[in-house]
């Protein structure tokens, strides 16, 4: 069975270590925060100038001056801090964020990512995504394995304009957990009940299958 969005988030949450500073993109990545175990303390970074992002506010606590990078109203935890945009991206570019999780339209077998622009269709801009993918050593892409038309999003080469080149090292989809190696996507884990063949069929880029591929433990 392919993973739900929540399960993708749940699997990614297992990659988190105690004390991590994490930047979570919009969509599935945001859900990851819900699956961090209680005994693990993470600090969420929001690139508009916030460390220690807390839960969404109650109606009484809403403040227009306190939003996240997705422009949602949020709160700050007692150990948090506010700062300006230049400082916020100093944290990102300087490699101070331990883990970045973001979505993508496409990922290539050489670690390129396309996530910001569909020529002729979507011209919203890259926001902070290019900064995030260029800077982090530890990036996980969270996405569906195929698009709505059933086409693979794990490609030999991205067809859309890139957000970053040679930067993605790990991908969690509804079908699998994969790492980007020298020669292609290395299949590390299968979604429960999903066969290697199914994953192979849904992967346009080179898929490297070495030995037995275990099922994910969620």
């Amino acid at each position, binding site marked *: 069975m392919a993973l739900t969005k929540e399960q993708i988030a749940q699997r990614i949450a297992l990659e988190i270590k105690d004390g991590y500073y994490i930047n979570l993109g919009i969509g599935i990545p945001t859900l990851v925060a819900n699956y961090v175990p209680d005994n693990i303390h993470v600090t969420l970074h*929001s*690139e*508009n*100038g*916030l460390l220690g992002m807390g*839960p*969404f*506010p*109650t*109606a009484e606590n*809403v*403040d*227009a*001056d*306190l*939003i*996240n*990078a*997705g*422009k*949602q*109203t*949020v709160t*700050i935890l007692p150990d948090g801090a*506010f*700062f*300006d*945009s*230049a400082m*916020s*991206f*100093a944290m*990102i*570019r300087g490699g101070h964020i331990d883990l970045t999780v973001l979505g993508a339209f496409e990922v290539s077998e050489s670690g*390129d990512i396309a996530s910001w622009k569909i020529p002729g269709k979507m*011209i*919203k*801009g*890259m*926001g*902070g*995504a*290019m*900064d995030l993918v*260029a*800077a982090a050593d530890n990036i996980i892409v969270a996405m569906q394995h195929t698009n709505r038309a059933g086409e693979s999003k794990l490609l030999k080469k991205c067809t859309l*304009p*890139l*957000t*970053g*080149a*040679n930067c993605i090292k790990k991908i969690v989809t509804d079908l699998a957990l994969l790492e980007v190696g020298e020669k292609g996507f290395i299949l590390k884990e299968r979604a429960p009940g999903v066969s290697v063949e199914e994953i192979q069929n849904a992967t346009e880029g080179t898929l490297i299958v070495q030995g037995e591929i275990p099922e994910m433990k969620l």
Partner: protein
Amino acid sequence: MMSKQVNSADDLIHFIRNGMTIMAGGFGLCGIPENMINAVAASNVIDLTVISNNIGIDNFGLGKWLSKRQIKKILASYVGENKEFENMLLKGEVEMEFVPQGTLAERIRAGGAGIPAFYVATGVGTEVAEGKEERVFDGQRYILEKALRADVALVKAWKGDEAGNLVFKDTAQNFNAAMAMAGKLTIAEVEEMVPIGSLDPNHIHVPGIFVQYIFEGSNYEKRIERLTLANQV
């Protein structure tokens, strides 16, 4: 002492002239200089080059300048919330340079800090790198990015004093701090003017040296783009 305080945006609107490059602080609609934005929208100024992380929403914030066709060119990182803009761009009615958000913030800070150019990894291998020098330091690829300055920077703070010292609240700081540094002329509007000496000198976000004029704004709407509550989720 010499006061930098004026009464309202009306006293300063004459500084904004056709063809100028204007920076406007804010992230989305958070921390935008509403009073100056409205004053410009009410003026006949045109051909502006606007540097701002976003471009407002349809008919609010900088979206008003778009509706009135006051903008010639935009440098921003994300314009997703503005449909009018997308139409104008497709029709060629406005020029657009997308700048990665961190590069935008750093180019602005550099402009204020007397750094003409610097290298970043952001955008290497993407269309952002096109036409830019690429260079390797310690085995990693970087591109050269140039500083940005503005004829006038419009910023919004929470509190300020007559010396131009500014304090921000929460995430409303965002691009306002760096832009205050990068304006050849910087105009600050604040929610509350406070007497000299009431701001803790250890906790001033923008020292007055960067601010030429300041006023207490009025009628802040502080619109929320995505009201999200705990019990909804």
